[in-house]
């Protein structure tokens, strides 16, 4: 028992845990924010997972062909926006079932990335290493004990993620476009009678969701590593959906929930690496479930407290 307490204390007193929380949360924050944008306008977007995957792949592809990771980022977000536009087109223009359209896009993304991986890089599994987006080096600040280790050398994606949350919150709650987004997501008919163009506002929300989710995906590939591997999103799109729900469809809430999940993953990774515990490989699988168990407990505890926009997932068809 004592070695467990010791191990946990070790984790929490080590700045690496906090840094890892930030980096683990970053893709979740971005994707969850994407979900908030889409669902605030009333379109369910379970395709986040697929969009992230396309963002990740586009990032590596762009960086590979141009040698410039920023072009990679541009290509990745373009792919994400294109995927989202497909979802918007099917579900807004044609009133398609949004779950089916979203599922189709996830499968499509897995197919495209799997195929292109082999076509372009000649092998399944993973791409060559490409240049990744350079970290933000804070110079001598790195020497400051503890916080220097956490913030001294972070990916710009981390900053982008938090800035995006602020941007999203202000847009949704403090601008007239945001008011229209919320009205269209709750009662499109009422918005329509006031001359608000329900379709345009929904297109905007869904396309923004593609942009942010793809940013989150690109971080996974060209944020630190510089490589794409098959299915590298590994369910993060779904965790992001959970974060969005737990965060009550609010950018700040979604961010907090993402930090919780990111923290759980970081904790789990750090704990496993504590040598005092001497864990077998098999128990590590059990540890791997920690973030998901937390999801279930938190979601369970929040039932009835978190409310989706009233018209979330309901196509709007005139006349």
């Amino acid at each position, binding site marked *: 028992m004592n070695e467990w307490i010791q191990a946990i204390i070790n984790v929490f007193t080590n700045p690496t845990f906090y840094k890892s929380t930030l980096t683990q949360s970053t893709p979740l924050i971005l994707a969850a924010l994407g979900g908030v944008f889409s669902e605030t306008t009333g379109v369910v977007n379970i395709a986040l997972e697929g969009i992230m995957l396309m963002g990740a792949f586009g990032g590596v592809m762009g960086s590979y062909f141009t040698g410039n990771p920023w072009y990679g980022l541009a290509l990745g977000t373009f792919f994400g926006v294109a995927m989202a536009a497909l979802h918007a087109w099917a579900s807004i223009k044609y009133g398609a079932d949004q779950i089916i359209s979203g599922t189709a896009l996830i499968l499509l993304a897995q197919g495209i990335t799997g195929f292109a991986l082999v076509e372009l890089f000649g092998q399944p599994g993973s791409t060559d290493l490409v240049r990744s987006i350079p970290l933000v080096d804070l110079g001598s600040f790195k020497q400051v004990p503890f916080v220097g280790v956490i913030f001294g050398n972070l990916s710009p994606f981390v900053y982008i993620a938090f800035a995006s949350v602020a941007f999203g919150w202000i847009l949704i709650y*403090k*601008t*007239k476009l*945001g*008011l*229209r987004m*919320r*009205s269209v997501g*709750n*009662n499109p*008919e*009422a*918005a*329509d*009678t*006031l*001359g*608000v163009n329900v379709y345009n506002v929904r297109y905007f929300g869904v396309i923004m969701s593609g942009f942010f989710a793809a940013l989150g995906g690109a971080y996974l590939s060209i944020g630190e590593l510089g490589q794409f591997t098959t299915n590298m999103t590994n369910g993060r799109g779904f965790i992001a959906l959970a974060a969005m729900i737990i965060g009550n469809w609010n950018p700040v809430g979604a961010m907090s929930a993402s930090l919780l999940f990111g923290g759980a993953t970081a904790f789990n990774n750090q704990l496993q690496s504590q040598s005092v515990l001497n864990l077998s490989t098999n128990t590590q699988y059990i540890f791997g479930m920690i973030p998901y168990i937390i999801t279930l407990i938190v979601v369970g505890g929040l039932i009835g407290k978190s409310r989706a*926009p*009233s018209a979330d997932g309901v196509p709007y068809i005139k*006349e």
Partner: protein
Amino acid sequence: MDKNVDYSKYAVVMKGITKRFPGVLANDRVDLFVKKGEIHAIVGENGAGKTTLMSQLYGLIKPDDGKIYINGVEAQINDPNDAISAKIGMVHQHFMLVDRLSVVENIVLGQEPVRGPFFALNRARKEIKDLSKKFGLIVDPDSIIEDMPVGMQQRVEIIKVLYRGAEILVLDEPTAVLTPQETNELFEVLKSLKSQGKTIIFITHKLNEVMAITESVTVMRLGKVTGVVKTSQTSSKELANMMVGREVLLTVEKNSAHPGDEILQVKDLVVKENRGIEAVRGLSLNVRSGEIVGIAGVAGNGQTELTEAMTGLRKVESGKIIFKGQDITGFSPKKRREMGMGHIPEDRLKHGLIKTFPIYYNFILGEHDDPKFSDGVFLKIEDIRKFSENLVKRFDVRPPKIDLLGMNLSGGNQQKVIVAREIAFDPALMIVSQPTRGLDVGAIEFIHKTLISMRDKGIGILLISMELEEIFSLSDRILTIYEGQIMGEVRPENTTTEEVGLMMAGHRLEDLHQEA
């Protein structure tokens, strides 16, 4: 031809408007003339096409044929934006409010004041306060719509229209959901709007309201205009006959009741409302078979919670509900239904009907596993359809097409579908809330007669209604509810509306008798 006619004294002229829905001619060459600055009523049976006509004026749907002139000039109204530019505003029969947003947000939506890139909330709030003052429509700009009573929500709808600078206001059955007090307040507002030069089109089924505040009336029936009269030259009775095309009884005739055994007993019931405050506070009552017990009261005094508790939709804090001698306090709604408790809910769209289901499915809601309709696995569609064809005829649902979706029925016909279903399943006790809300005089007459004949067949009926007239003409006993408690029991033949009105305002019957 119309070019030569001078329409300039009319705020609205609709000429030869025709609108066809699949299988229904909703408007058939309708003409409507509304003078500037008048209050003009449109009356007509459920499904006569009133809402459809107004939806075309507001650009929500497009006429198949016909022309619209605003202030004498032909107008192209293709969408609500065009209507708003033409200074037309509409308060819809089913409110168009975003219930999670605040009053301010709802009012300015679509025409938001901005400061730089931001929505200027403070300026919006101020503009709304000014408007509320100017027209005597007091609301709290920061309340959230879903927390407000309907009367308040309606004020928000009216301010919304005025905020857009509307000169022509369309109000589609604005009083259907209001209490008598709220209706009076609304009328004051309408009079003040009129004195400021606004033109008002007012749709209602309550003919006394037509007589009280309008100048002229257009009567519609089955999609056509059947009469245009000046209010001063007509009467409720004449209007009713014009609407329905026959003599209508404005009050039902009934014989005295022959009540049997006690079928429902409520003892010291306590029920909380959503925010956790006690809404029903130690209420007791009983209903015998073969009698109608009316509950009179101003909306919001616990009626909703009382009905929900009795039908099993809401938790009971303490007290007992005994039905057919059995304590059913903890029973599920399904179990209560199986025991023979029928229910006509007050909110037809929320609890009464599934909007996206055709009529014939709506007719078997709650009875879907009855062997008449199901063999245990599959529904017997043919039998269900036959049953439905019958009901539609018996209850005169219009149009009589059982494939029509719930949402495509006019408001009054949705209500008929619910009443028909509940009566058809042959209950022993009926909990009836606002059974005639939004119904036309002919349909009211029909439903009142039906309720009386159910009573005469030995069914116990608990009637909850905000309409005092309805309570008086149907009930054998009247209980008045105030803040979740019964103020007293009277018989309609031994009391007056004043006495019940005083109890509705919180005076106990025994105190009234002491004073007298």
